[in-house]
């Protein structure tokens, strides 16, 4: 009762994404799949889910040789793939999404709404009897975790034996994750195997019966989840030994400079911040549950979107009208989340993307005329500063891995002469980024802080916040809560603060 891969190889022009990978995924286990970005996880599950065909190798379902011609073909053979991005139609209800493309119709060929709602509810209660989600609401109004559950139920609507979950919790706040974890754990008991890809190693370890590690397109090992530590997993992924991965750079005492940003009585959108001040060299972490407002606040601090009232003192001077251009001119950098939507142009090459913020540095004097040679030099410098892995600066952004895209998204602010920003605002700086790139990005954040930038990081990754912040503010339902100093950092303290528990 399994899907077995034998000698699977995937050759792309110029790169071999998978190199003779053997693996088996049974129908009564959660099977974690880990590796750095570019290790071949996505390619492997694309093959498993039928959307890509390997250049070599064989796939067996229950020991019978099988070929998966397409994602639809894989579905018919019992393998479903829930991708990272989410595939729900935002304006349709949960029930409509669950039965999308398979709607019950009455004899006039018109969708039978009552029957549709009943069938969707039956499916939901069949798979997850103790979950209650309002299936009549448009899914865009539902919490992210509920949306994920709806996607999973939709994937399970056929006769599915193996469910691939690609980063199911990447977009979820910590609190909502636990429900989803329970749901994932319950599936193998019902005869549905799960292939789980996640950047959160603690999650992989907690959920998986077995864990397969990929590195550079090769199968490194498959281990029982209970017999391995997170640190060992990191070592396997990064091919290091001896050096414990969990060994974190001890936080050296840093001295902070003058006050850069001072807010009082801020109201923006649905968010209130009574007072906030930030000094040069300091890293301030913003945390909160989904909808707590910390992401929106961080963004509005740069764009001024939704600003209602309050005073903003920037380096001692009042800034009456916030806007991206004014803040940029004041030496503020903003590195948003969802980089392909907010930061990068997929069809542009690396060089053009890097030049987007400060194109004048690749120009001839102040003429506004671009010099290809200068642009190339600056692009190369930025690429090597951030260790961006690309064939050349002429490679298109959309063809890079997540970690490299993120490095370009940050690197474009440092194109040309490395800037000393007064303030840098990051939202989810390591979203969908592998652990190696994550470490590098954290190192850069600390370096830029030590060079005198005040830094604000809004993140849903509490480990990240604990690792890099000097101070943390938890947002609760649109209000900035009390500050937590570094000495008092702990996961339980963060979670309590996000839930509004003050102690």
């Amino acid at each position: 009762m399994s899907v077995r891969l034998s000698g699977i190889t995937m050759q792309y022009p110029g790169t071999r994404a998978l190199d003779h990978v053997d693996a088996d995924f049974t129908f009564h286990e959660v099977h974690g799949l880990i590796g750095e970005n570019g290790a071949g996880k996505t390619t492997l599950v694309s093959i498993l889910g039928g959307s890509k065909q390997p250049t070599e190798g064989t796939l067996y379902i229950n020991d019978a040789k099988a070929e998966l011609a397409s994602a639809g073909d894989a579905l018919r053979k019992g393998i479903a793939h829930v991708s990272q991005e989410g595939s729900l139609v935002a304006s349709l209800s949960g029930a409509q999404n669950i039965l999308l493309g398979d709607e019950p119709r009455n004899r006039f060929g018109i969708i039978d709404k009552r029957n549709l709602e009943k069938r969707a509810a039956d499916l939901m209660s069949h798979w997850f009897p103790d979950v209650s989600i309002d299936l009549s609401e448009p899914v865009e109004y539902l919490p992210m975790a509920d949306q994920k559950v709806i996607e999973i139920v939709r994937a399970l609507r056929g006769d599915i034996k193996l469910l691939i979950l690609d980063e199911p919790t990447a977009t979820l706040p910590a609190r909502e994750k636990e429900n989803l974890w329970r749901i994932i754990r319950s599936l193998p008991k019902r005869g549905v195997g799960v292939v789980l890809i996640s950047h959160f190693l603690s999650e992989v370890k907690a959920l998986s019966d077995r864990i397969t590690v990929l590195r550079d397109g090769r199968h490194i090992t498959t281990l029982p989840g209970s017999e391995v530590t997170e640190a060992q997993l990191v070592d396997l992924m990064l091919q290091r030994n001896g050096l414990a991965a969990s060994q974190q750079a001890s936080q050296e005492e840093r001295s902070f400079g003058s006050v850069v940003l001072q807010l009082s009585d801020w109201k923006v959108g649905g968010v209130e911040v009574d007072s906030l001040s930030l000094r040069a060299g300091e890293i301030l972490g913003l945390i909160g549950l989904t909808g707590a407002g910390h992401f929106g606040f961080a963004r509005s601090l740069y764009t001024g979107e939704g600003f209602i009232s309050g005073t903003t003192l920037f380096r001692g001077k009042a800034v009456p009208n916030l806007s991206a251009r004014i803040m940029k001119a004041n030496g503020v950098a903003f590195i948003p989340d969802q980089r392909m939507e907010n930061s990068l142009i997929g069809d542009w090459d690396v060089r053009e993307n890097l030049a987007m913020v400060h194109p004048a540095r690749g120009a001839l004097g102040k003429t506004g005329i671009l010099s290809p040679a200068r642009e190339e030099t600056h692009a190369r410098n930025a690429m090597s500063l951030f260790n961006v892995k690309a064939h050349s600066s002429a490679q298109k952004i959309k063809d890079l891995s997540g970690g490299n895209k993120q490095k370009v998204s940050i690197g474009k602010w440092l194109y040309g002469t490395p800037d000393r920003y007064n303030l840098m605002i990051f939202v989810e700086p390591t979203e969908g980024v592998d652990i190696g790139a994550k470490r590098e990005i954290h190192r850069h954040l600390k370096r830029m802080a030590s060079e005198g930038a005040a830094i604000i990081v809004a993140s849903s990754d509490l480990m990240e916040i604990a690792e890099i912040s000097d101070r943390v503010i938890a947002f609760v339902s649109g209000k900035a809560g009390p500050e937590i100093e570094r000495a008092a950092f702990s996961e339980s303290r963060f979670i309590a603060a996000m839930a509004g528990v003050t102690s």
Partner: protein
Amino acid sequence: MSAQARPAAEIRSHAAEKGKSQWLLKYSTLIALVILFLGFALTVDRFLTTSNLLNIVQQISMLTIVGAGLTFGFGAKEMDLSVGYTVGLTGILVPLMLISGVPLPLALLGGIAAGFAVGAANSMLVTLIGIPSLIATLATGSILYGLNFMTTGGRAIYGGLPDTYLWLGQGQLLGIPVLAYAMVLFVLLAWFLMERTIFGRYIYAVGGNLKAAELSGVNGRFYRSAALVVCSLFAAVAGMLLAARLGSGQPNAGERYLLDGLATVFIGMTMIRPGTATVIGTFFGALFIGVINNGLNLIGMDTYIQSIVKGLIILVAVAIVSRTTNLRLL
């Protein structure tokens, strides 16, 4: 990825395969153009004569200028459907001014100002009020059409145009039509702005990802507006040259420049950077349209057949672009 482990021959064949399909895509239009040219040259007697080739150049020069302007609009993902009537507008405005005694430089400046006014109106409707450019310019085009006929009473304006003005559209310099120089000048100007300046880079940026551009500190409203203003300015120039070539101002002379202009851009989008409007691509697109128009004319094909042929060409070009890239225009 481990580069050493994979067999070199295999990689090379893959790379060659990918390279070949890319190459085919990029150059298929150029190959089609060459075949078309050779086809006409072999079958139509008068096609391959100096005077006819110069004629083609003259015919496409205005079209190329309109297309080059539209390339700015497409770069910023803004459509300008009013260009044809802007061509018509300056095509009657400048002759009218000249006939009533306005000196030539001033009249030309007046034409430019009219183009700027149309572009400013379009961009205000689009960026300040928020009407999608496709709709806004469709409407302003209709208004211009009405104005053009109102001003002239539907009649052509001719007689009494100064020789220097007519020379711009009909004269030659060193055996080459003045219009050809104008075309080269404006193509080079457009190419330089789009490919070699921050201005052009930002026009492409707001078209490529408006949100990302604005969060990078780019003034999205300005560059979207600028793209629409350039569309109108180039159309205005084309209109002034067109009237000089025709020797009269005709209220409906500009109409065909809309569809033909869009066609040049679409054809151009199949080459250079497939899916993106480029000035050089547009130039070859105009050449394509020019050769077809001219060849079919010489054969004696009816204008409505030409219209069908052009419609099909646009469909093929857009089909190629849509199939190979994720083209979005609205």
